[in-house]
């Protein structure tokens, strides 16, 4: 009974969400087709759709997508390994937690994107500076959540395992890791989201290739319809990846 009620509630809120998007699209269409909004500022959605079909059909997007995803993969891999390793090491001593946790949390609150000009100076306009920015932004949520995950495992679990004769490795594998995992996974998801965001963003500021770069390039050439098509494409990619990481997180937490 109550599950049917739940499902009806969910359906109703879905309907409102879809309705809202449809109304927005309708406004967009009416504004460009009948109300005389300049196509330079806001292109007709039908035109955008044709551009998108052309981009997808011709495979023109592939080189840019490869650059962006490559930067993301490398940045995320570096911040994962370094963040989890460092976080685990810090979590092993109460003293290290007291010293480093506030320090890292302090640096995390700095808008690291401001270092982009410096990174461009160090690593050039290519993928190097994007990987650097993506890594240094996603490193902090990962390392902080790893410290929180491993550092605050309830003592009773450790004591119980010790009383039953758990070895150091068994303690890690069967007690510390499962206790810490949900918190670490949340850190990984946040890290992934901010890495993608900062890489796309920095591509729009200073770069030679990538989806962000393509979008700015089209804007400067006043090809607004094609730019909108690329934005829609990038949004779709980002939404897919974020949904994927969220569902991976949920699935891992359920176990």
């Amino acid at each position: 009974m109550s599950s049917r009620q739940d499902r009806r509630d969910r359906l109703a809120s879905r309907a409102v969400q879809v309705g809202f998007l449809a109304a927005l699209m309708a406004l967009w269409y009416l504004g460009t087709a009948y109300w005389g909004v300049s196509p330079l500022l806001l292109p007709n959605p039908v035109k955008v759709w044709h551009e998108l079909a052309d981009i997808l059909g011709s495979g023109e997007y592939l080189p840019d997508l490869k650059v962006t995803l490559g930067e993301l993969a490398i940045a995320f891999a570096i911040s994962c390994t370094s963040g989890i390793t460092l976080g685990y090491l810090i979590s092993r001593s109460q003293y290290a937690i007291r010293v480093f946790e506030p320090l890292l949390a302090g640096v995390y609150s700095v808008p690291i994107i401001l270092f982009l000009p410096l990174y461009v100076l160090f690593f050039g306009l290519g993928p190097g500076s994007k990987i650097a920015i993506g890594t240094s932004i996603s490193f902090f949520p990962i390392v902080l959540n790893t410290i929180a995950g491993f550092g605050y495992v309830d003592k009773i679990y450790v004591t119980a395992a010790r009383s039953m004769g758990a070895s150091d490795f068994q303690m890690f594998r069967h007690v510390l890791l499962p206790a810490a995992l949900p918190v670490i996974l949340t850190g990984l998801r946040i890290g992934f989201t901010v890495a993608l965001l900062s890489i796309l963003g920095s591509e729009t500021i200073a770069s030679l290739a990538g989806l962000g770069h393509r979008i700015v390039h089209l804007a400067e050439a006043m090809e607004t319809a094609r730019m909108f098509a690329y934005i829609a494409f990038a949004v779709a990619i980002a939404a897919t990846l974020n949904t994927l990481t969220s569902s991976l997180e949920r699935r891992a937490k359920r176990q």
Partner: protein
Amino acid sequence: MSAAGDVAISVRNVSHQFGEPGDTFHVRALADTSLDIARGELLCLIGPSGCGKSTLLNMIGGLLVPTAGTVHVGDKAVRAPLPHEIAFVFQENALFPWCSVIENVKLGMVFQGVPKAEHEPRARRSLEAVGLKDFINHYPAQLSGGMRQRAALARALSLETGILLMDEPFGALDEQTRMILGEDLSVLLSRTEKTIVFVTHSLGEAVFLADRVAVFSARPGTIKEIISVDEPHPRNPSFVTTEKFSQLRNRLYGLLHDEIRKAVEQSAMAGPQS
């Protein structure tokens, strides 16, 4: 049962302090305590809060090292946990919440080093013994407090140790659940040959379960007196209504009352921060 059996646990002039003398957090938890626990005996430790009864239990189990004195289990001096000789049941929530009930029991055997083929039958046997055979695939969060403690007991039983240390295992449960668990525990343990040390706050629980009850004085704690409860196991639930039960309970109450007052006054003197 306790009569003339050989000694399973021998505690000699043990004391324990947290911190050094002069430190602000220096606490003498236990002072110069000696005690012999016979094989197959159930000994209850009872006393005011902070009297060191849990400290003594943890030293017997090797989770704490005494500041002075020695603890022997059989002929082994205890300096660290002895997973093959001693199993623990803690106050609450020592089950791993990420494992189902049966996985919790099996994980204990993994830690202890039991061959894998024995895990399943031993886990099922001990869960059946505590009355949880229909809940083996539940997670701890899906169980009531009483059922969680049954599962923790099953995990300890599956380790098949000679000694079982229980640190206020029913302390967080309501009075009725506690009574039922106590009765079941008495039946269950009368079938095993285990030596059991059981820390409790409850006078009734101590008299109902124990062969002997060791009464602690206020801090720095030590054993003030040991009372024998001469009544065969398993104890009949109607034991609690007998004159003998009331007399023993009243005697415990008399011994404890002054110590509890002292302990309360101590903590009041320690100031508002404690």
